[in-house]
């Protein structure tokens, strides 16, 4: 089985749009959460979010005209991929593009909101209490555009990445809710290990900060409604946590077989050591209360990496800030790490960046690689009130220097999707 390493990284996040700026801000405990400006959310239960600010697509992607119709999440993915591609030095590399694949967790694109609501409302028949589809079709044909509709398909970010990179190898998009990009990077690793590609572009991209996205999460009562003080709203593991804060963005990594990376003299940032994936098979709305699936995923990742819990120096938690997740995840981590659980630092960058949904796992994996590089742990901010359910070392409020050779990142999705991935310092052969 081939070893797999990370040789490039890029991200577009609510805290910045390049690796070093965001990392610096994470270590400083800053926040990317503010009042929502992408639409008028004034009367919504939640009026705050973590938006990507001042995004200039053409500043990231030289041939931006090639991607004319690209939606917001696709543009994020392209920008993050351009960074990752550059940082991996692939621009100068001689690549067999048939051996370059992609595994993305691209979310669905945003609805063409005005056209959609206008068509629906003008075709609503009060008498029949239903949409008059004949009238709807007429309005929709006029108001909707082929490109905007196509770009909502969840595979479109992937398809645009192919145009950007020229990658012609195996290409997948997966969408397992909040677990998706950890899963994408894990599965990309499996493709490389098996020898089906030399290089894989892996990661995720998502933007759900739009009226129906926020509606969906508000109806589920999953979002924080602590609108008064946005930077304080996301409170993973804190006793006063009240839900997650919706974010948006993309994280992309360049994964490569060790052989290929060495042959071209690439700088190796970290090695992907192990990956595990399970299903709770419990409920569509709730996680398994004893964290059964989460425990299974972490254990599978450890077994895959041939490591024991004693080898884990840092856990980047899923840590959403919902009452349910943080307690269950704590239980699960304690199960897996046993006696060591209280000594092993665990933190959630969602406290600062919000929850990037399908892109969350990718930006959190990148965070793990940076933690290993600099031996620095990003904090969990807003941790002020102890919750007896959450009694681990969450690196509260201040970044901390610590030896980090091996880090585990968790991602759990609605519907009981659990994925864990382990990265470690590359120390040669």
């Amino acid at each position: 089985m081939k070893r797999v390493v990370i040789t490039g990284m890029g991200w577009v996040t609510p805290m910045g749009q390049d690796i070093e700026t965001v990392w610096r801000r994470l270590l400083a405990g800053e926040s990317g959460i503010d009042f929502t400006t992408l639409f008028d959310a004034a009367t919504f239960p939640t009026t705050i979010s973590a938006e990507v600010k001042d995004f200039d697509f053409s500043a990231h992607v030289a041939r931006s005209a090639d991607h004319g119709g690209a939606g917001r999440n696709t543009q994020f993915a392209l920008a993050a991929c351009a960074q990752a591609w550059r940082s991996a030095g692939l621009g100068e590399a001689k690549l067999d593009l048939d051996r370059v694949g992609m595994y993305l967790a691209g979310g669905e694109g945003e609805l063409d909101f005005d056209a959609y609501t206008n068509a629906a409302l003008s075709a609503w028949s009060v008498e029949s209490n239903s949409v008059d589809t004949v009238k709807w079709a007429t309005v929709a044909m006029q108001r909707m555009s082929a490109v905007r509709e196509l770009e909502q398909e969840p595979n479109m970010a992937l398809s645009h990445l192919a145009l950007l990179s020229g990658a012609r190898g195996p290409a997948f998009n997966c969408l397992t809710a909040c677990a998706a990009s950890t899963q994408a990077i894990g599965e990309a690793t499996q493709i490389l290990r098996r020898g089906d590609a030399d290089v894989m572009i892996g990661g995720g991209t998502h933007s759900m900060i739009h009226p129906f996205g926020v509606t969906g999460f508000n109806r589920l009562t999953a979002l924080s409604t602590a609108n008064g003080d946005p930077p304080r709203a996301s409170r993973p593991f804190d006793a006063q946590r009240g839900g997650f804060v919706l974010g948006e963005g993309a994280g992309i990594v360049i994964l490569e077989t060790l052989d290929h990376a060495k042959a071209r003299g690439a700088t190796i940032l970290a090695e992907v050591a192990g990956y595990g994936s399970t299903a709770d098979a419990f409920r569509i709305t709730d996680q398994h209360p004893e964290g059964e699936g989460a425990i299974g995923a972490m254990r599978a990742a450890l077994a895959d990496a041939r490591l024991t819990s004693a080898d884990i120096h840092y856990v980047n938690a899923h840590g959403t800030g919902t009452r349910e997740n943080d307690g269950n995840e704590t239980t699960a981590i304690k199960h897996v790490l046993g006696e060591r659980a209280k000594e092993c630092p665990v933190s959630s960058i969602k406290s600062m960046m919000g929850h990037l949904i399908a892109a969350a796992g990718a930006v959190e994996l990148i965070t793990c690689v940076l933690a290993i590089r600099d031996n620095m742990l990003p904090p969990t901010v807003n941790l002020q009130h102890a919750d007896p359910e959450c009694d681990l070392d969450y690196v509260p409020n201040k970044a901390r220097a610590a030896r980090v050779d091996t880090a585990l990142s968790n991602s759990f999705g609605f519907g009981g999707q659990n994925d864990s991935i382990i990265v470690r310092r590359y120390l040669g052969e």
Partner: protein
Amino acid sequence: MSTMRRVVVTGIGVICPIGIGSAAFWENLVGGKIGVRRISAFDPSGFPSQIAGEVPAYKIGDYVPKSYRKATKVMARDIELAVVAADDAFKDAGLKSKAYTETPDFDGKRFGCNIGAGLISVDLNELTVALHSARNGDQLDLRKWGGEGMTQLTPLWLLKYLPNMLACHVTIIHQLKGPSNTITCADASSHLAIGEAFRTIQRGDADLAVCGGAESKVQPMGLMRQCLLNRVSTKHNETPESAVRPFDVDATGTAVGEGAGLFILEEFEHAKRRGAKIYAELAGFGATQDTYNVSQPSPTGDSYGRAISLALIDANLPPASVDLLVPCGLGIASHDRAELNGLTTVFGGGLSRIPLFPLKSRTGNLAAGSGVDAAAAVLSLHHNKIPAALNTGKIIGGLSLNNAAEARDAAINIAVSSVYSLGGQNAALVFRKPAKEAS
């Protein structure tokens, strides 16, 4: 690699326009049935294309355990289709899951689930009745919506439409706790999901998997998108049965469809131990990406052809060994031409000798539910019979294809099912008759 675990198909689950259940599907396939008709789910007369491959009426409650009936309220149609096909697949495989017994005959932790899905459209009536309460003329008043309006929607509204809910409901109903994933690559979703499940079992991370995909585009938004993209035929509203004409000179576009096709894949020794019926060995998988355009396949079809070549190499089989090809065959002239170019790069002059069965004339385009295409390939191999390639008469480009207007008997040892997506993802699966020692 000689130590590689082998993977076989031991169950087939289908719900599609020509049958609910893989047995009915096969019977109607051989019987020459076409499921493309005028749409009955809603009044389509305002749409340029008014036809679809619509699934016959069913009651979702009949396909889930009694205790799970309440949960069917939060299932979009795409989810229902996956749940029905999964029920069919488990029964066909003779696997007693938690849906049927308190004491399942397999280890749920070793059972994976890879179900491909599409962009699930929100139910227009359900949403619009809520929007109506917050309207300002023909526009939505966001202030009203954010306050009272949205509360008209059921709290679980979002969960009806998340693509991973297909797999989530199936894993809950059947208590499958192994690796689970949701591939969303449009028309290639099913094949990619099956390919990924194949690898998961090969490398030992699971012994079984339910895999494939499901989608419905038979709703206003799904149909509208295909109309706007000029992919669907507008010339056959009065003659729906002859609308979808794969590779035919008179092709005028495809038809939207709906359905689900799922396999039970199983590690070979595991299947033998429990005396399972083995339909076929899944012998090879290949996947590639086109880099031509996000909405059109490359006219050369080269990346599509490369997926098939990779799958054959993976199966360690030469192109000439293929006894049956179930191609994508959308019935969109420019696409079909590109596909034939791609097939020619793989099979060369031999293409005219390989029996070809394009399914879509019967069902329309099932998109992420194109696991049904793969099911057609496996059932043909199993029954040694090739269904009729209806509506494919005079072939574009003056090519001669080995298609027939009547079902025919044929010894099929190797069958290939290949697809490409709107977006350029290509995938191919190679199935082989189980070796004598296998049965």
